[in-house]
């Protein structure tokens, strides 16, 4: 009897331990991930509407204005349309790869969000090598495009896949060097620490109180510009949207896709734009830090500052698409390999030299 009770007790303890170590943290992580996922997808819907309105304003058109008041329900109407249409898979396509392609793309685009901190301690996975993880995930993103383009068995899609592969591999090189210069200044690969290190910088060295002048955009201004332009290329956005160049490749790697599979590819592009903007904010615009460390600014929660900065960068992405004409392919390659690569390589060297000579290295 006694023994039985003890056995029951140890079993009970084990169960308790199991719940404490696996079930509860697991449930918290799943809840956080779901919350982030919903936030990102809602932002995507807002992004679709906002971009179309911005382009319309630049072109002096009205933009979407039929569905709902001021057309705000347009993204949801699009969403329903994509879901309810018949999915068509071309007869000569490589069917499994054709379906996996967009799934890989959208998974990777969403996966990058796992390590992005939107506020102090507001991050799903606060890992030591956050920035490297983002770099790895974004370098995998090219597979979604290549798989989609190859599996479609269409020359337009295939040409787009080849262009995309070359373009993303080229611009990843300069993105890598830009990230390295930021890491040299911070001394950590953790995204939260990258943000926190921007509390003091160029501004405080001049004797000013902590402000937006301390963020990396000022001290590393050339790298900020290179990163922004490379981010456009990495996300296949205008003026580097050669993989889906409508005027020559019809719609590039998405040409054979329809219905929900097309929706996934569409989502991928927008989620990637949001993620790249978020990374720009974390690396160069001080994440959730307020622009001035004085009373009315510090009352606002950090997440609001983060979102404000995020949407400013997204606005820049949209304006570029509205204003800048598409690059020719050889110009794109020339810019990546002959302009950005030497400049960013030189800047890595110069930054390291300055940090070493002045003793500012972390």
């Amino acid at each position, binding site marked *: 009897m006694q023994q039985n009770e003890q056995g029951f007790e140890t079993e009970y303890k084990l169960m308790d331990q199991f719940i404490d170590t696996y079930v509860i943290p697991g449930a918290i992580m799943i809840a956080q991930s779901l919350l982030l996922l919903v936030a990102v997808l809602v932002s995507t819907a807002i992004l679709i509407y906002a971009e179309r309105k911005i382009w319309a304003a630049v072109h002096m058109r009205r933009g979407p204005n039929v569905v709902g008041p001021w057309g705000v329900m347009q993204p949801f109407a699009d969403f329903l349309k994509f879901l309810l249409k018949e999915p068509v898979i071309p007869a000569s396509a490589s069917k499994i790869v054709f379906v996996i392609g967009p799934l890989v793309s959208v998974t990777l685009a969403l996966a990058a969000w796992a390590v992005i901190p939107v506020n102090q301690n507001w991050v799903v996975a606060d890992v*030591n090598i956050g920035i490297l*993880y983002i770099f790895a995930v974004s370098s*995998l993103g090219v597979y979604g495009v290549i798989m989609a383009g190859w599996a479609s068995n269409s020359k337009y899609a295939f040409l787009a896949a*080849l262009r995309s592969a070359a373009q993303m591999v080229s611009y990843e090189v300069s993105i890598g060097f830009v990230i390295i210069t930021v890491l040299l200044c911070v001394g950590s690969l953790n995204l939260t620490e990258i943000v926190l290190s921007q509390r003091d910088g160029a501004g405080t060295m001049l004797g000013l109180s902590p402000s937006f002048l301390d963020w990396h955009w000022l001290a590393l201004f050339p790298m900020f510009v290179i990163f922004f332009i490379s981010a456009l290329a990495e996300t296949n956005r205008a003026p580097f949207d050669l993989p889906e160049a409508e005027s020559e490749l019809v719609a590039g790697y998405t040409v054979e896709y329809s219905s929900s599979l097309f929706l996934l590819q569409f989502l991928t592009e927008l989620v990637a734009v949001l993620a790249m903007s978020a990374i720009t904010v974390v690396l160069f615009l001080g994440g959730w830090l307020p622009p001035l460390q004085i009373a009315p600014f510090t009352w606002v929660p950090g997440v609001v500052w983060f979102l404000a900065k995020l949407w400013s960068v997204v606005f820049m992405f949209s304006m570029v698409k509205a204003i800048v004409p598409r690059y020719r392919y050889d110009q794109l390659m020339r810019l990546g390999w002959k302009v950005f690569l030497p400049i960013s390589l030189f800047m890595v060297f110069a930054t390291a030299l300055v940090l070493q000579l002045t003793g500012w290295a972390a």
Partner: protein
Amino acid sequence: MILTALFFYLFATVTIGAAFMVITARNPVHAVLFLILAFVNSAGLFMLAGAEFLALLLIVVYVGAVAVLFLFVVMMLDVDFAELRAGFLDYLPVGGVIGLIVLAELLIVLGSWVVAPGAIGDPVQPIPDMDKVSNIRALGDLLYTRYVFFFQIAGMVLLVAMIGAIVLTLHHKDKARRQNIGAQIARNPASAIEVVKDVKPGQGL
């Protein structure tokens, strides 16, 4: 620990399965895609062993760059795999012997580690304690401080190889029309547009 073990078996199974599919898949592109799957899962194994920097480097370098170019080439080539496969049985003994040799060597190394742990450096324990020094710092200390000259020499070897590849494939064509970027950018309406015929507005040609 249970979770780690579960993930180990998951990654290990998928790695071996994908590696098997690399050599048996009929379509060369599918074979490369399986190779990439094997790479990603080995990165997962690295991650479980605590080598998170190596894991992500494997993904960035091999999966993100090398395998993309590999896939690129395989897609462009028109490889007839049925023809390649025709000699499969002839080459099987040679391939099998090589595989057995590699397996035997691995077993000898691992076996000696089990029998006499002091005989070779402990492969599981990283040299600095993981709790004290992070992965990246330890690698950086070794590569860029302790073995910096070897690192430089390795870089020189790669540079020579790169220049060699360029020299082998570079052909200067005298008659080719080259692009002059400076001249293209310097063009303006005054130099590029020419009025062929003086046409009054509203009259047509």
